[in-house]
């Protein structure tokens, strides 16, 4: 027996947990970076605007202070400090306009763009961006109520500059913040990668352990797996355990078969030998009849061994068909009764509590037929000629799972309670002399197990043995 081949290479490209985690994390970090960048960009813009708006506001105050009425008319005396304060945004161009609310320009650039929504009287500064002189510029608009000889009038000051310093500051804040974010993201990814490698290390150890083993080494893995793969390691160990058991079973089966065949054939040869040594035709005929019986037993044994091997082998492949038990039982019984030696046997099939067509279950029909044949055969072989057999079909449960129960009651000699466990083993027969090979019930047992069901033996109300074969409806777990 050999180990199953290493992971099949047929599966195109196996996905990498490491890559999946990395890609996931990188995508997550990128998404986070984008969101934070948008926030950072807005923050940087607001911060730059607030900073430089103060310059505009301060200069506006200085200029408005120097607008005053005189008997000779309005004086607008732009203080040089005002333009120098705005000029603290060193590389930016400065524009201003002093005008009456009516729109008449007193001094400055007459074509400055007005704020969205137009000019309103008021001494609160209003800030806005507007395109001017081939660039987007930032303006403040602020008014001052002047009492002139002709009456009160609002004098408006619009002061602005290009956005160079603001954009530079915004870019500076943004790029520094972004550099920090990117650094954190990169560090995060590096640490994450290290973490993944560390987390994956036990898996590599397990792989090395399995690859490095002798083919016959089936001892459990001694890796100390993390919780997440503990189940996997457990499953591998279980699997290896099952391989060991299966291997042992196969070995003992082969040994048993060899022994049984050898014994049976030796007996046949003994009978033939004895027959050959007989001079009297009558005695020779008797000996030959014995030899023929022995040959029949040997053939039967061989058939049963093959049947057992087949059932065991089929059990490996999971049954997928959903079949109706009722016709299966019926055909099995008919087939059984077709043999001449079954004459006189009385078989009844009882399924009162199951309407026709409802005894459906996922099972291997060939194996089930084999099991039924063996059960009937068993009853007929060990019971009287006119044995009565009742076959029943009913619903039951295996643990929490829905199941069907096939029961066989016979009026035969039965099996003492103490022996019931042993007869399920191979080659254990209560009645060797009567032709029992000791394989029949063990075949049924194997079928029950391969279907995830169970086999139970009990006393029958007919006085003989009651066999209950429980099979889950949805197949083996």
């Amino acid at each position, binding site marked *: 027996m050999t180990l199953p081949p290493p992971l099949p290479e047929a599966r195109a490209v196996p996905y990498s947990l490491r890559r999946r985690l990395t890609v996931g994390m990188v995508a997550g970090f990128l998404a986070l970076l984008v969101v934070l960048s948008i926030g950072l960009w807005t923050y940087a813009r607001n911060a730059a605007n607030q900073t430089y708006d103060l310059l505009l506001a301060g200069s506006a105050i200085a200029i408005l202070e120097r607008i005053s009425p005189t008997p000779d008319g309005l004086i607008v005396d732009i*203080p040089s400090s005002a333009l120098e304060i705005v000029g603290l945004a060193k590389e930016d*161009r*400065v524009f201003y306009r002093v005008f009456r609310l009516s729109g008449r320009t007193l*001094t400055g650039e007459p074509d400055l763009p007005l704020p969205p929504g137009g000019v309103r009287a008021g001494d609160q500064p209003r800030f806005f961006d507007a395109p001017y002189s081939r660039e987007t510029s930032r303006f403040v608009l602020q008014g001052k109520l002047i009492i002139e000889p002709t009456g009160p009038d609002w004098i408006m000051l619009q002061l602005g500059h290009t956005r160079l310093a603001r954009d530079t500051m915004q870019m500076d804040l943004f790029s520094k913040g972004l550099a920090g974010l990117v650094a954190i993201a990169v560090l995060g990814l590096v640490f994450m990668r290290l973490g993944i490698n560390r987390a994956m290390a036990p898996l590599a150890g397990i792989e090395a352990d399995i690859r490095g083993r002798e083919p016959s080494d089936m001892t459990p893995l001694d890796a100390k797996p993390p919780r997440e793969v503990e189940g996997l390691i457990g499953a591998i160990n279980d699997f290896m355990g099952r391989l060991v058991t299966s291997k042992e079973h196969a070995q003992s089966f082969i040994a048993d078969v060899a022994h049984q065949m050898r014994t049976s054939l030796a007996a046949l040869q003994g009978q033939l030998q004895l027959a050959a040594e007989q001079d009297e035709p009558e005695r020779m005929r008797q000996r030959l009849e014995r030899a023929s019986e022995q040959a029949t037993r040997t053939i039967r044994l061989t058939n049963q061994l093959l049947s057992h091997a087949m059932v065991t082998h089929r059990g490996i492949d999971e049954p997928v068909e959903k079949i109706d038990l009722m016709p299966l039982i019926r055909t099995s019984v008919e087939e059984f009764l077709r043999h001449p030696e079954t004459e006189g046997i009385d078989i009844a099939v009882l399924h009162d509590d199951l309407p026709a067509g409802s005894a459906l279950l996922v099972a291997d029909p060939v194996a089930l037929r084999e099991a039924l044949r063996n059960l009937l055969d068993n009853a007929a072989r060990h019971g009287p000629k006119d044995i009565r057999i009742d076959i029943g079909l009913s619903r039951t449960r295996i643990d929490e799972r829905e199941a069907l129960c096939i029961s066989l009651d016979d009026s035969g000699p039965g099996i003492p309670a103490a022996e019931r466990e042993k007869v399920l083993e191979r080659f254990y027969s209560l009645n060797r002399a009567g032709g029992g090979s000791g394989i029949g019930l063990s075949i049924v047992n194997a079928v029950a197990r391969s279907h995830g069901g169970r086999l139970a033996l009990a006393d029958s109300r007919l006085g003989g043995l009651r066999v209950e074969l429980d099979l889950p409806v949805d197949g083996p777990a």
Partner: protein
Amino acid sequence: MTLATLARTRLGALRRIRAAVLGAAALSLAAVGHARAETRLTIYSATDTSAMTEVIARFEATHPAVKVEYVEYNTSELYEAIASHSHLVDVVISSSMDLQAKLVNSGDAYAFRPPNADALPEWARWRGELYGFTWEPVVMVYNKAAFADRPLPQTRSELAGMIRDDPDFFRGRVGTYDIHLSGVGYLFATQDAQRGYQFSRVAESFGRARARTFCCTREVLDRVARGELVYGYNMIGSYTLGVVREDERIGYYLLDDYTLVMSRTAFIPETAPNKRAAVSFVNFLLSPEGQAAIATSPELIPLLPEATIASGHSGVPGTEGRSLLPIRLGTGLLTYLDRLKKEAFLADWSAAMQVDSASQ
């Protein structure tokens, strides 16, 4: 003659000089047989052609494919020409820092970065568009004979006091810029005005002494040399230095309270047809070679001190240890160009100077 007529006459008298002679280098190259595509670099400048001859010759020598056309203007005329966008010009040069700043502020200038930008003093460059390339202190000149036996005033306050105490000596014999006519004169006056109240005292005393005003430094220097004037206020140091070297009769000095320093500036209009050549010309002006060329002109002082020293040009003797106030390029210069502000300032100045036909 009224002021207005005077102004028109003066402007009309300014000739635009095509600097054909400056094409000599290019012509000689053509003669050798270089059939090169020529780039014509148009420079509009408010600086005497003679002052720039050597600089342009050296530039043309290193850039054989470029032929310079140098057109001379006075500062206000130059400002009007550029602001109206009616001329296609490659480089604009002017001593009027405020008007240059205003042109740049209007967004008409082209940004570029000279290779040695970081070596240039911060006050002499703005926005990567406007670059100063000379260093010219504003000085006082006097007639040596007239002041032979009297002390020179050492501060503006002393100057005002002396004029008040000795009106007969100074009457009609103090000269300065006519700030209505001269952009540079207006710049100096407004810079003075920002330094404090002393200047209004000086202006008042000028008015009392019936000080005379002129368009240009040279006009004042000529009259001081002849003794027609005894004192000239706010003269451009570089011109003065060139004249003083040649003329024994004139002296110059710096006042103790402060000395303004101005810089001739150049920028490239956004509409310049030959930006590449223009950039290489301004880069040349600012380069050590260009600065050395500037140092050879008796009428200009280079911006970079090492150029002054390397060429043996002594700069302006007497500037060491003085409180020098460079005029800073930037938005602050726009203040006195405000229409109302300028009207008010000129009105105040005229009132103080009592400028009328009688002063001439």
